[in-house]
């Protein structure tokens, strides 16, 4: 259970870090924050890569490859769409 406890410590502390950072966000950036955070949740991609290594058509490998596709859509799409939105916010402070 040692690993679980360490994981729990990390989990709880990270939640506090998240709360501390995000409570300061201005409403203007709510959408980019959400889609950016959304892209970060695609971190599960790391897990899916580890499970898709066998290169066979076993159930686990197939699930892993589908997971890679799903997570990559989340990651690439999420970061790009956030980048697009933020591009519109920048460069026109005063008109």
């Amino acid at each position: 259970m040692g690993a679980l406890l360490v994981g729990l410590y990390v989990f709880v502390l990270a939640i506090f870090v998240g709360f501390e950072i995000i409570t300061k966000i201005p409403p203007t950036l709510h959408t980019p924050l959400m889609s950016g955070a959304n892209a970060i949740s695609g971190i599960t991609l790391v897990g899916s890569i580890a499970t898709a290594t066998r290169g066979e058509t076993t159930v686990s490998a197939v699930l892993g490859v589908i997971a890679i596709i799903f997570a990559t859509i989340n990651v690439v799409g999420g970061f790009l769409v956030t980048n697009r939105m933020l591009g519109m916010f920048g460069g026109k402070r005063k008109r």
Partner: protein
Amino acid sequence: MSDPLSSVIIPLLYLLSAVLFIFGLKGLTGVRTAQRGNRLAALAMLLAVVTTLIELGVVDYRWIAGGLIAGSVIGAIAALKVEMTAMPQMVALFNGFGGGASALVAGSILWARIVEPGSAGTASALLGADSATTAFLSIVIGAVTFSGSLIAFLKLQGTIGGQPTLIPGRHVVNSLFLAASLVCGVYLAFFAPTPGELAIAALVLGALGLLLGVLYVIPIGGADMPVIISFLNSLSGLAASMTGFVLGNNLLIISGALVGASGLILTQIMCVAMNRSLGNVFFSGFGGETAASDSREYSNVRSYSPEEAAMVLESAESVVIVPGYGLAVAQAQHTARELGDLLEKRGAKVSYAIHPVAGRMPGHMNVLLAEADVAYDKLFEMDAINPEFKTTDAVLVVGANDVVNPAAETDPASPIAGMPVLKVYNAGTVMVIKRSLSPGFAGIKNGLFENDNTMMVFGDAKKILQELVNEVKSLAA
């Protein structure tokens, strides 16, 4: 463990990635630093993927490469092609894929470690109670996120109705399915004695998760979408965290927790903006009994032509534009900005009032107006602009309804009683551009439309705004 690469360097690279994620999120909290923050987070993701590939060493990369390429192409095309007005459904869809991936990873691990080797014994005996429990949570949360986000996507896309779909006795049904999935999960983690039974339990659990996502999101109507999208965002983070517990990977735990926390905060902000609790959003379903008994008969509604409205705007020294979901539907953000610029050129002070839940996701209106090149220092939050309405000559409400309904303040029996609203009724003249007198999402009458200082201009938002632009121009000539 003696190998320094796997015992020291790899974990340090993951730690670096987690730190970059935190800096990235921190960047996203300021307009000036947001672009850099997002790129930093993307860099952190790349680092994490590369680190994982290093950790794996020499394996068969064909499947991994294929999956990465397919996902990148699909994600990139979707992200670059989507219209800004369709952003809420795009965010929902991406979110769903993230949740789905977490559930699939947990399933894949169960198959790889238990079902395929044909190991005898329960999951908790083979993987440890912690991994078994988090695997079941990962599957169910991930599946709920996936199907819930898909339903939200379909609702926002207009494929299925945005009105709440209320199934009789749904609270009982939902609770039963929730209980069933918990029982199934506990069975999967602690009691399934053979690989075959474990496989069946995992499949049933996944199916129950998908069903729960549908059941919980289907009753939720359009105006509650900002809450539900934020909440699903939070869930996808939690699912990633649970997967991190299963894999014993702290980077997943940290990143997932960050996203979970940010989603929860947004959910909370949205709930406060509607004066409702999360439970109320999930369980009440507007448009039911209370709304049906409410009179929707209007009297004293005066309809004006764009020409008459333009004359008022033309002589106003201060104008506040209040955008709502109708603006997004009509894709009228550019025309609204054109009108705003025109009035400003003629000497009026023009600002935009943004209600926190205007639109279908947090910050929806801000993104649309940013796309239309409205400087963000002209956008004002509700609390900042509410005192200003008293000294405002003209307010132009474009496609907003419930967020400007005075009943929230005056009628304690109203379903939206207590919800903070924009006090537009204090202004000299209120012009409301609306397609018809149909009630807003809450299904209630809006007394604002009957006020003596209110001018209703009926029609499509974009068309009316364009006519206003033309009329103001011709008045000037």
